[in-house]
């Protein structure tokens, strides 16, 4: 699978820079990080450079470049980790709902943490070997294993816990913090073993996904939603679609069956949507009385009739 360069996927840190003085720390980290790589290059130069026959120097140069990159990433992770430890002593990161304002201590430190973490995550993701991202996750306190594949979506780098064999689809977003209006919500997201997250799925903070569940493409979850184990979920907010039997031993002939009944398939999706829509309309009618012109447009209480004009 070829990852589009323009999408800039990978482990993400929210792009919030509440105070400009955070940049000083950030630039200091970049400075410190590049030094070990330079030292390595200098040592290599001292050992292998020969003015007359520089053959050895050029033969091992490509390998050295890989080594320099990896040491740079390690240095970035370690220095950021040390900075984070000091910051976390000053203010312990915690879950909750905070005011999105400079005066709020939690919001400020959340912004500081994300600013600092940007450099190592960017550096480790700009490398064709994807396992460096895993080191980043582990260093910043995300519990994950090497059997997970989380490199083609956006995964938050704090307050997320993964089980084993999780597949995160292309362009999926797994977040543990969200800004709604004037509030910042931080809640722990837990994803258990063998969860298959479809492409473009959005997982909000506080979601708990049980074992062996599958999320359909373009489904999304609500803040604090609980998904039971062993089900296939669909839609936004995600709802039970059917029981997940794809982790059992199924004879492969059964799986190869074509989806022949296409009308039935559409109906299945529609029913789920319509049920939700009817409930919503029912509630709307009961609780809020929308203005008259708006009510006509929402088709409240009457059927749609002029929908097939586009056909011809």
């Amino acid at each position: 699978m070829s990852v589009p360069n323009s999408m800039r996927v990978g482990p993400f840190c929210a792009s919030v820079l509440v105070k400009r003085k955070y940049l000083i720390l950030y630039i200091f980290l970049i400075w410190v990080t590049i030094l070990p790589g330079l030292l390595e290059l200098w040592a290599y130069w001292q050992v292998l450079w020969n003015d007359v026959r520089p053959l050895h120097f050029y033969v091992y140069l490509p390998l050295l470049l890989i080594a320099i990159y990896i040491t740079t990433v390690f240095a970035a992770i370690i220095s950021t980790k040390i900075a984070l430890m000091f910051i976390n002593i000053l203010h312990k990161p915690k879950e909750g709902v905070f005011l999105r304002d400079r005066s709020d201590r939690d919001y400020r430190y959340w912004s500081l943490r994300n600013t600092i973490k940007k450099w190592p995550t960017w550096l480790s993701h700009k490398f064709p070997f994807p396992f460096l991202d895993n080191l980043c996750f582990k260093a910043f306190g995300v519990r994950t294993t090497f059997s997970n594949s989380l490199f083609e979506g956006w995964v938050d780098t704090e307050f997320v816990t993964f089980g084993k064999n999780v597949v995160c689809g292309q362009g999926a977003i797994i977040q543990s913090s969200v800004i709604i209006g004037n509030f910042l919500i931080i809640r722990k997201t837990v994803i258990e073993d063998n969860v298959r997250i479809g492409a473009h799925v959005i997982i909000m903070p506080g979601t708990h996904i049980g074992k062996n569940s599958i999320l359909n493409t373009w489904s999304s979850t609500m803040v604090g939603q609980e998904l039971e184990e062993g089900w296939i979920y669909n839609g936004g907010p995600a709802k039970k679609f059917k029981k997940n039997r794809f982790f059992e031993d199924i004879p492969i002939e059964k799986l190869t069956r074509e989806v022949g009944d296409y009308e039935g398939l559409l109906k299945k999706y529609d029913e789920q949507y319509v049920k939700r829509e009817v409930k919503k309309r029912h509630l709307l009618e009961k609780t809020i009385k929308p203005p008259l012109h708006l009510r006509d447009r929402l088709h409240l209480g009457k059927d749609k009739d002029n929908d097939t004009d586009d056909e011809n």
Partner: protein
Amino acid sequence: MENDNLDDNINPEEQNIKDNEDDFSIDFTTSSAISSVGIKFLILYIPIFWFSGLVVATFWYGYAAGTTNWIIKLLYLPLFLLSLMFLFIFTSFFFCKLLLILINLMCVPKEGIFRIDTKDPNFEFWKLRIELKKIVLWFLRNWPLPWLDVLAFRFFGVKIDFSSHLNDAWVDCEFIEFGKNITVGQGAVLMSSMVVGNYLIIKKITLDDFSLIGGQSTIAPGTHFGKDTVLGAVSVTTLNQILEDGWIYGSIPARKLKLNKYAEERTASIHKVDVDGEEKVEVEHDINIDEDKRKFLRRSSKE
């Protein structure tokens, strides 16, 4: 913030979907990211990187040790660096292709449904192929000319020519057949392989000429796009879905919206839609095409 969730009020009985014993139909779409990164496979990356780096280093040595005036060297340096980058990518292509031929001799890539299991050679070799191709595509998409990734697709055996654009999308580079003039939108996902539970599904995608895929849409394995088919943004096709010629599809799962009149003929009028008032107005509109070039318009020239 959870109190305004309307779905909280739904009865538990409504949520109880029948536990159908035989419901093995795959009527949903997931993703195909590699389920685990085999670190043992990464050993293959190092020789590729080393050998192609060696070729680049040789050329660089020749340039640096040459006896030409340093001003002329400096003048040509940017051009030389760009060509070195291209050389690096091209040689890594070459070594990847060599390794791929060897790997494909060991296990021929084939369509079908396989178990996700380290004992299944089809699954293991699929992972290996994906990782090998990933490095070249990564290099190509991260250098200043990302459109050249079509070259990599051609090298790896995908039928495609330079009239198609796909460099802003996730595209699998095997079991896909492209026609001519295909546009793939930003962030779209074209999967010829999909991981469902414990199974890996590999099925060929075929795209006919002039088909258009909207941004952020997801194409499941086995999808067939007819000629002049348009798939709207944020829409999803299901496994083995066939999209007919000359229709506009949309929504989740993809369904027919209307006939693709834009393909039939380029009329001299366009529609303006007032969304708030729910009305359509036809507006006279001149197409900016010279009279002598009108014959190049598709279809309209035939009639």
